[in-house]
């Protein structure tokens, strides 16, 4: 089977057309010493049927999150996705990652984006929302850049309980900006207000806190917001597990300035790590510093309700190098998934799901502690993820779980290499686990 679709006749024709005699001559501008002179070390080409079988063998080596239920979360969570969402997402009209600049052609897409913005605005109680940045980490970094533009200050303070990958992404984004990043020291399951007070000064643009945090802990946002505002800095709340919005107090009710939220939990499969979707939400006064598109509602010349992209002057085709928005493609299909998911669940549905997450996680923790094989490293309020110390051999525990078709919890030691975390495991428990399964897990781990 050939993988290059042009025949040698066609190749000759093309070379003749552009006026070179051979393929070698076409490459003459590439220096000799950087050219690969030998063939790539690849097996010979396979016929299509054999190739397909080959790939299926590789695919079958993968476990999926249905045959193996994950007890790991740490940034990506398996939740139940209604069949109706999957069916509706098959509508090919929704299949675009491009910007619907022409409202006369894109009313359906624009309305769906507007609806998603409205859902997120109600959940977060924030005034304005942009619906789609690729993932929570890049949304968080965009929020940090926003805070620098808004305050013209040069220091960012980061909670040690912000997801480690998010922390890395912030550093990558702000590197060219000559910004000082201060990471607070880790104490226990919550960001330390005292440590924060010591680091805050009048050159601080923003403080970035994830809640629920990397250990699942619910932060005392209100207290930290107050301290932040006393220093004329902005408070950025990061939400990685969006399901928590169904149960916890909304950021808008706690005077948070900017929210960066991953919406993977709203109707997106895990798919081996992506794609996700994330939103940014803020106060109306900061709207012009938002990156990304915003869809607004207006009336057409006949007075009918229509939707358009708005505040376009922020974007790169108009503002060029001064743009606050340089985002072209986005995860529109995942916005659509989130919109359908939230519409199907409704307010009460989302609340019930959130509550199930909370209760099931707390049930498993209680059962594990009862066994005597586990201890609590430090108590803190949490949503659906909790840290627990195992007395036995971690490798054996992992093996036992995998043998019984559960993906083991995260060993946080790899992210917090302190001796006290050697035996610490981060469990995530969502609504997908039945009580029987949770009992089975605690029995397995109590042996």
């Amino acid at each position, binding site marked *: 089977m050939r993988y290059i679709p042009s025949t040698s006749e066609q190749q000759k024709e093309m070379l003749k057309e552009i006026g070179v005699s051979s393929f070698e001559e076409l490459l003459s501008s590439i220096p000799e010493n950087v050219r690969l002179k030998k063939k790539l070390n690849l097996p010979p080409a396979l016929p299509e049927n054999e190739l397909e079988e080959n790939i299926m063998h590789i695919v079958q080596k993968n476990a999926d999150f249905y045959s193996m239920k994950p007890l790991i979360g740490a940034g990506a969570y398996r939740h139940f996705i209604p069949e109706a969402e999957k069916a509706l997402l098959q509508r090919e009209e929704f299949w675009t990652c491009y910007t619907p600049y022409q409202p006369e052609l894109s009313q359906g897409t624009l309305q769906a984006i507007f609806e998603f913005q409205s859902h997120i605005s109600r959940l977060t109680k924030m005034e304005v929302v942009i619906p789609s940045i690729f993932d929570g980490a890049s949304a968080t970094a965009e929020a940090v850049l926003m805070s620098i533009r808004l305050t013209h200050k040069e220091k960012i303070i980061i909670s040690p309980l912000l997801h480690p990958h998010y922390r890395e992404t912030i550093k990558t984004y702000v590197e060219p900006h000559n910004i000082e990043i201060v990471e607070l020291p880790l104490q226990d399951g919550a960001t330390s207000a005292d440590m924060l007070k010591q680091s805050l000064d009048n050159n601080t643009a923003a403080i970035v806190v994830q809640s629920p945090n990397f250990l699942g802990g619910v932060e005392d946002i209100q207290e930290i917001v107050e301290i932040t505002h006393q220093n004329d800095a902005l408070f950025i709340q990061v939400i990685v597990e969006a399901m928590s919005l169904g149960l916890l107090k909304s950021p808008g009710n706690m005077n948070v300035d900017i929210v960066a939220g991953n919406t993977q939990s709203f109707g997106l499969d895990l798919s081996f790590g992506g794609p996700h979707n994330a939103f940014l939400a803020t106060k109306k006064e900061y709207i*012009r510093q938002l990156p990304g598109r915003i869809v607004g509602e207006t009336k057409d010349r006949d007075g009918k309700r229509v939707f358009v992209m708005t505040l376009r*002057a*922020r974007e790169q085709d*108009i*503002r060029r190098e*001064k743009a606050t928005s340089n985002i072209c493609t986005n995860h529109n299909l995942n916005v659509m998934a989130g919109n359908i998911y939230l519409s199907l669940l409704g307010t009460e549905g989302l609340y019930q799901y959130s509550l199930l997450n909370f209760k099931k996680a707390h049930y498993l923790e209680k059962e594990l502690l009862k066994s005597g094989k586990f201890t609590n490293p430090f108590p803190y309020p949490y949503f659906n993820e909790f840290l627990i110390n195992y007395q036995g051999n971690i490798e054996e525990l992992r093996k036992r779980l995998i043998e019984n078709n559960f993906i083991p919890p995260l060993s946080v030691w790899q992210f917090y290499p302190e001796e006290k975390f050697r035996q610490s495991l981060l469990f995530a428990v969502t609504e997908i686990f039945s009580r029987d399964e949770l009992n089975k897990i605690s029995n397995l781990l109590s042996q």
Partner: protein
Amino acid sequence: MSNKVLEGLFYTKNDEWVKVEDDLGTIGISDYAQDQLGDIVYVEEIKKGTIVNQGDIITTVESVKAVAEVYSPISGEVIEANHTIIDEPSHINGDPYGKGWFAKIKMSKPEETKELMNASDYGDYRK
């Protein structure tokens, strides 16, 4: 095209103006600038106490079709900003040399006005 020029003011090539009274400079954008921009819908707030150098971006003006940076024609400290243009940006279109002023700056280098154009030079520049 509208291109009204007011006598007694100094002008920049970027179409800002400054009116000097003692060591105080009141700044704004010219009639030509507002006309080129079209209907202005937003002006970024200028903060009192800001120290600017001649040529620094002092604020941003957004119209229905464009966004423009406004550069300070003089160096000094902002001692007063016009808040009515924040609520009513249309003053800049309607009365660019009057109600549409941007800020009052206590000038630290009054000699800088020598580098600016007078009304008749600016009138020729934007003819």
